[in-house]
């Protein structure tokens, strides 16, 4: 397996980015892939651990040591098959996953984890390039019909698994195109959309029917769905954004991040937004509130628009540059993460609370007023924030993007009309064993069930939910969890 001493002999070497000045000029991906021989060599670094922590770290439980070994031995196709056995869409995760697997890689104890994500991406990109990836059409079909609501990663994974088990699957998508946040949330420079299109083509061949512009609970009756189908999988995501109720929130120029990002994705795809409602950062002082991945995407997009300045604010204090491995590994560590978008130009400020927005002469937002925070241990054992007296700050802000995450799924419409129980956080109540909601025949998976999370978690839930549905429909199931 791999090379027992590979990790001692071979340095970690990962994909690189095209230069900033070049990549800011376009919306395409800018990662430089490794050559086959480089990938193979990196695969040799895998230690084939007795306990592969990566494999637990990975939400879809990719059987990482095995395909690292396949890469090392240049058995690309075997590696790809194995990868596909746990992950329907490695080309998505190979691009946008934050790679918890690498955080939990044993070599991360030395900050030199195996380049797992790169190897994953290489395997699947090669598979597409070589034409190895074909539809897997079920030999036998059942007479069961399943509706999948939502076409993000959870819905797609769920639909693909069910179709491969021989069920008739219909995917309902409220937007005009399939893909959910994959298509509309993630900027093209991080993942180009043709990657989704070819998966849709594959799934159509496998028998999945896609119905865009079908907003269940709005223009499609939810109860009808339950009536017409043998099972319904709700994979509608967690789309209710967290708001910032401070004075000035209503000012023009203060937007949710997702309004900004979806517009841009449509723009790149060729469908332009009416000029009046366009949100552009060009020449503006942009403040992004929220330090997560969405915030980071806003930074990258703003810079590509040609913003005058970009500032990203975070409520929490600045995390350490380097985590304390002794207390964090193999878990996902809290540490300062600098994305490719940050590298493209951005000021990051931490422990700042936004108190209000002030309008400029044009009535649009012009300034952000904030105050610095100090975080102290609270009586309840947690941390609490205290405003530091006299530390008020004011920032120029022509465009403010709220990227503070999502609270829970949208309750209006479908969820309310189906009368589903919710968990205390407002997500659809269902466990991770059966994924069954409080209503018969109705299942839920992905962010709609677990709250906002990663693409890779969505894929996991979609797959597992499909298994549960298959078992529900047929009594037994061959689908893997």
């Amino acid at each position, binding site marked *: 397996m791999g090379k027992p001493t590979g990790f001692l002999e071979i340095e970690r070497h990962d994909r690189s980015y095209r230069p900033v000045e070049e990549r800011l000029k376009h919306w395409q991906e800018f990662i430089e892939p490794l050559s086959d021989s480089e990938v193979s060599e990196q695969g040799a670094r895998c230690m084939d651990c007795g306990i592969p922590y990566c494999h637990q770290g990975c939400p879809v439980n990719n059987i990482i040591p095995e395909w690292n070994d396949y890469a090392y031995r240049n058995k690309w196709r075997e590696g790809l098959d194995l990868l596909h056995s746990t992950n329907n869409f490695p080309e998505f995760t190979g691009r946008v996953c934050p790679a918890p697997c690498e955080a939990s890689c044993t070599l991360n104890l030395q900050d030199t984890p195996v380049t797992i994500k790169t190897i994953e991406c290489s395997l699947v990109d090669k598979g597409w390039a070589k034409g190895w990836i074909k539809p897997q059409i079920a030999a036998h079909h059942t007479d069961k019909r399943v509706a999948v609501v939502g076409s993000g990663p959870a819905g797609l994974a769920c639909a693909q698994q069910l179709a491969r088990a021989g069920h008739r699957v219909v995917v309902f998508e409220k937007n005009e195109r399939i893909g959910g946040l994959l298509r509309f949330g993630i900027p093209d420079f991080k993942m180009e959309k043709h990657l989704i299109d070819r998966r849709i083509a594959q799934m159509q061949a496998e028998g999945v029917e896609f119905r865009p512009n079908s907003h269940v609970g709005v223009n499609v009756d939810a109860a009808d769905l339950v009536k017409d189908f043998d099972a319904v999988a709700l994979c509608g995501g967690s789309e209710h954004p967290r708001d910032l109720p401070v004075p000035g929130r209503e000012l023009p120029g203060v937007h949710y991040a997702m309004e900004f990002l979806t517009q841009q994705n449509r723009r790149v795809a060729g469908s332009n937004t009416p000029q009046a409602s366009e949100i552009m950062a060009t020449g503006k002082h942009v403040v992004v509130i929220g330090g997560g991945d969405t915030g980071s995407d806003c930074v990258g997009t703003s810079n590509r628009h040609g913003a005058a300045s970009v500032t990203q604010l975070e409520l929490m204090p600045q995390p350490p540059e380097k985590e304390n491995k002794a207390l964090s590994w193999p878990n996902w560590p809290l540490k300062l993460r600098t994305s490719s978008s940050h590298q493209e130009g951005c000021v990051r400020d931490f422990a700042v609370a936004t108190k209000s927005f002030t309008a400029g002469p044009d009535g649009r937002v012009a300034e952000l007023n904030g105050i610095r925070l100090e975080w102290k241990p609270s009586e309840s054992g947690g941390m609490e924030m205290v405003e530091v007296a006299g530390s008020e700050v004011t920032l120029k802000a022509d465009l403010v993007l709220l990227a503070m995450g999502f609270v829970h799924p949208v309750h209006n419409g479908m969820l309310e009309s189906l009368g589903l129980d919710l968990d205390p956080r407002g997500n659809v109540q269902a466990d991770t064993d059966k994924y069954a909601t409080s209503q018969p025949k109705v299942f839920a998976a992905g962010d709609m069930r677990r709250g906002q999370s990663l693409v890779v978690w969505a894929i996991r839930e979609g797959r597992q939910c499909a298994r549960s549905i298959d078992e529900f429909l047929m009594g037994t199931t061959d689908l*893997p969890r």
Partner: protein
Amino acid sequence: MSQTSRRNGYGLPVEQGMYDPLNEHDACGFGFIADIHNKPRHEIVHQALEIVHHLDHRGAIGADPLAGDGAGILIQIPDAFMRKVFAKQGIEVPAKGDYAIGMVFLPRDHKLRDLAIKAVEKTTAEEGQVLLGWRDVPTDNSVLGESVKPNEPVIKQVLIKRGPNTPDRAAFERKLYVIRKQAHHALWDKDEGSWQDFYFPSMSSATIVYKGMVLAPNLAKYYVDFQDPDFATAIALFHQRFSTNTFPSWRLAQPFRFLCHNGEINTLRGNVNWMNARRHNMSSKILGDDLDKLWPLIGDGSSDSSTFDNALELLVMGGYSLSHAMMLMIPEAWKDNPQMDPKRRAFYEYYSAMMEPWDGPAAMAFTDGKQIAATLDRNGLRPARYIVTDDGLVVMASEVGVLPIPEEKIVQKWRLQPGKMLVVDLEEHRIISDEEVKNELASEYPYQDWLDATQIHLADLPPEIGPMTPDAKTLLDQQQAFGYNREDLKFFLEPMAEEGQDPIGSMGRDFPLAALSDKSRMLYDYFFQNFAQVTNPPIDPIREELVMSLVSFIGPRPDLLDLGSGGKHKRLEVDQPILSNTDLERIRRIENHVDGEFRTYTLDICYQNTGPNRQTMAQAVDRICQKAEKVVREQGYNIIILSDRCMDADNIAVPALLATGAVHHHLIRQGLRTEVGLVVETGEARRVHDFCLLAGYGAEAMNPYLAFDTISNIVAEKGEGLSEAKAHSYYIKAVGKGMLKVMSKMGISTYQSYCGAQIFDAVGLSSDLIDAYFTGTATKVEGSGINEIAEETERRHSLAFGDGPLYRGDLDVGGDLAFRVRGEEHVWTPETIGTLQHAVRSANYKQFKAYTAKINDQTAKLKNLRGLFDLKPVGKPVPLDEVEPASEIVKRFATGAMSFGSISWEAHTTLAIAMNRIGGRSNTGEGGEDESRYKPLPNGDSMKSRIKQVASGRFGVTTEYLVNADDLQIKMAQGAKPGEGGQLPGHKVDEWIARVRHSTPGVGLISPPPHHDIYSIEDLAQLIHDLKNVNPKARVSVKLVSEVGVGTVAAGVSKAYADHVTISGHDGGTGASPLTSILNAGGPWELGLAEAHQTLVMNALRGRISVQVDGGIRTGRDVVIGALLGADEFGFATSALIAEGCIMMRKCHLNTCPVGVATQDPELRKRFTGEPEHIVNFFTFMAEEVREIMAELGFRTINEMIGRREALDVRPAVDHWKAHGVDVTRLLAPVKPAEGVNIYNCESQDHGLEKALDHQLIKDAKDAIEGGTPVSLEYPIININRTVGAMMSGEIALRHGHAGLPDDTIHVKFTGNAGQSFGAWLSKGVSFELSGDANDYVGKGLSGGRIAVYPSPKSPIVPEQNIIVGNTVLYGAISGECYFRGLAGERFAVRNSGATAVVEGCGDHGCEYMTGGTVVVLGETGRNFAAGMSGGIAYILDEAGDFASLCNQGMVELEPIDAAEADDGTEDVASDPMRFDARRLKGLIENHHRYTGSSRAKQILDNWDAYLPKFVKIVPVDYRRALRDMQERAASETAALAGE
């Protein structure tokens, strides 16, 4: 009427709880005394008893001081005496030879006794003999122990006269045999207890046995007859038993009717089965119809020795002579022995097809009254020394010096050698040599001709063609249906096919037992290999290959009692039992060859579970058995191939193991088994363990076609390297090697006796299943029945042929050997390890509780047996602050035995420092300890390990090491690899490790599988005594591994005076071990601990020994359950390592541990981050959790909690599809301690140290020990003075360390026969001189002292032709010198690390495993010299020129001695072992002459130039290379220095 099904105790307690009387073991002191002139005299009886008295230390005393384990004596019938005593009753005794005396033990109950007496009278009459009368044997039971008295039988003698129709004495003996058997049978169907008390110690016209549950010295008092001067005999066979139990069993006292036995028959279960299997094809011209009256043949005792006696008796009655029968049952190692006479080899080969060896360590003494003889098994693992006097007395015993005979009368001193026989013929009045006896028997018939006519070798049959490998899709389906997973390919088949070795892994197993697993497991996974511990030694199948054999015979076995005809049956022989596809076709088509003698039937073992022909698996198995019976009984087939080749989408294969066991046992029950050969053609078997099981349950040969196909596919895919044929042959080789290792673990040398021997425990199988198909196998916790097995099989099958996406193109992940999410469950997961490490590093108890919650949570997935327990309070909860503090509880904690070498210095010392801080104990492991660790560190910490391990390699076990211990742990077995030795490869032996282990850097080190000074329980007692002498303050501990029967071993260990015993679970870890062992040997600790505790309590031995449990203890709950099942102390290895940073990489064996724990790589060691605080936190948290649970349960102290099974409740696994049948209630069986018997350790052992001669020595040498004033002393010595010198050396080492005193400061001269372990661990500065001779283990662990032994000046013997010291001399010697004027026994200088020795000849296996030092042999050596010798040098005087054939040249080279080498006297000869040979050798011979006065030495020195060319030098290849490397390094360093 089956006796075995009753599982009663034959005087032992019946099976209860975890205790099973079948597991009892024994060992002993034994021997005989005989007057060659055959003059009966009263004195011989008393001499025999005196000898037994001198072997007292080889017997044992249990809780009751008067109750020994039994002693006895077998003598000629004292004719005059009998005449006299019967005359008093008015009965006239017929002429000598025309009458027999039956010695009878009768029930105490009147009614039963009358029944028994009537039975004897009735059958005597029926058989046409004349019963003349009965005599009450007078006894004095005041010498009986209280525990024995209730069982004392009524003892009578019956006088029987030869009947008128009985032509001769031989016929008379046969009739007596029939009478005895028949009489016995008459009571079998009566009341349960009755027949057990009815027993014939003997019934013969020649001999009589007096035996009983008395201490040997009391035998003469108990049997009043002994005091009569007419009570006379010319021979006496005697025996003192040391059994593992303390239950009084009169019938198990020895001798039996023909023999007494020191040793153990490992293959007993198989031998008994095979005997029963012969019923149908056995007939005897001599016994005629009487043969039928004898069944069952085996069975009036439960011990291996009594069973052996039963079988021997049948052969003798069937017409074999005693020595002939003995050669047949305990054959020498004949295969591949170039030195053996071809006729004798033919003899053995001929009989090997008739009967499988009764394999196991055995020294047997036997007699029929006309001859008295003794023999040793092929391994020669029991001591047997004898002397011959000038007036014709022969005394043979386990030790020399047991009878005070003046030296001037002794004309010969010799020993029994491995496989050899000593016969004293009382009619010819002479000793018949082994050579003569065997040549005569071997020439009696034309065995070679018979062989040529009947023996067919498979390889000689015409070639056939085997089927080709199927396409990839079919192959995958087959693999899946037979349960292959990715790990089978990755960890087993591929490496086996590429390297020809059974693959190696590391760490332990932490996944569920098969019955508890949620996965569909193979039937093989339910079985665990048994292994030898304490009561018999494992073998080293590599270094002692000469005794091993994989030869198998396929097909019908010849009639055992068909004497002298050469037999009609053809016999088919294979070199080893794994058949290639073409070999199998040869067997399938054999009918066309060999005159149609063989007919092969291929029996399909597949079935359908749907459709018109649907069957359940149980029905299918039944059909298969019926079919097998039919084709043998009615259709004349004599080879059956059980085949699953027909497995396909519709046909499900019955697990091959199930089919094999079922058919094998069915045919045994039908008495047909020996009429047919059983071959298994299966896609299922692939790992070594699988083949072992098939063999163990009766397969004579196996064809794993799917394994071959899989390998072919691997080879084809790789497209480079190995050819297909080569890969197959490597695989076969790997399986063979692996099987040899598994066999040798149990001390079994031949495949023939392993076949059908069932050396396994089942864990998690129902009794119904076992009784039906694996009859006689132990299964203690019930579990899966055939329906569950069917379910598992059918699940696999439908997965394989179904359309599940995961299995469409790939195998299951497996996940046993490395964690996988969709694989098997593990206890250690990323989550549990991460949580534990974060908890101990941040001193966060809450997080620790989160860790234990995760480990303990077995609600969804069962992981181990203790998961089936619930804790329940025994009283009101106790406030936490009233519970014993954590600081006290942690003192019961110890870390596991991991050597410096297997883990890094950092990892090792961190554990030691932490344990010393909390008052717990850390363990050195096997590898010595750097003496710098004995001094405290400046901050008060100490790196000293309180537990010092003494393992078979004895690396670094110096006197200084021993005296620096609080516990001395004798490692009998290790959880991950019980019954195996180990090997530290040369590249891991750096300078530091070499220094600590007293070896050479760069030279690999081998730990032998057995301790060469522990082949039996009495040997263990001796080693305990040795260690206790060196360091009287230390507790001596014995580490055992859980298996069925470990309880009785623990009882024996307690009787051997161990202060402490460890019961390890099979999930314990290892730095490197064959995967076969890690996964498949030993049992869970819950079983072993419960059995040990229950057995110790039943024996009233519990209080005097501390019981520790280890092997997968991870949480406070585990600790509490351990205590409740009976543990005083707790060991932690893997969990403690994890606390200091181990992340279970399972790479220990590769030296690539990325966290610096199990590696010696300096770069990787830097990555170690563990701190003593982490370990301290771990154990403190553990103790806190224990306290919390104790408070809930209502216990204030651990002592209160030990053995309190009522605090455990059983939680049935009702909703588990497989585990619902598992039942752990037996672990909780109530064992009521007798009044006043303690159930936790609170007493201490009486080691009898006050008797040691060393007290006198220490007193007399006080000034020398303390002040270095030289002293010279003299003492007489006899064999009961054991371990002389060790205690004094301990005193010296305490004061002066390993450096000791200046040379010859204390000089002691002894005169007489020294007991065992003379001069053990003798320190530097002490010189011992012995005029006389010595027993085994002279100079064991020698740490710098000097020993010289020479014969008494009064002795007329020729020293160089007689034995002077026993076996296993200089075992583990570190340094010092020895000179022996005479010959040494077997294994001279075994594992010598640095001592110098001169001897005038030695037995087999000389210099085995030697790693350093110099040995000179001025005479002949035995076979297998220098096996496993990796260091040091030896010089042999090879006058006969045949040494090369006696030397095992696997690791050494022979070379002449360079006489011409310059001798300018400027350089020290010690500086370079590769040079100055002539000078060195001469110097040593001069020393030899100086210290012993050897005339041999003088002769050589006087003719130096003539003798020098006859010397051969033995140099290990690696040693030479390592020395050269060191020299080169030194030279380049010097050069570099000069250059600066």
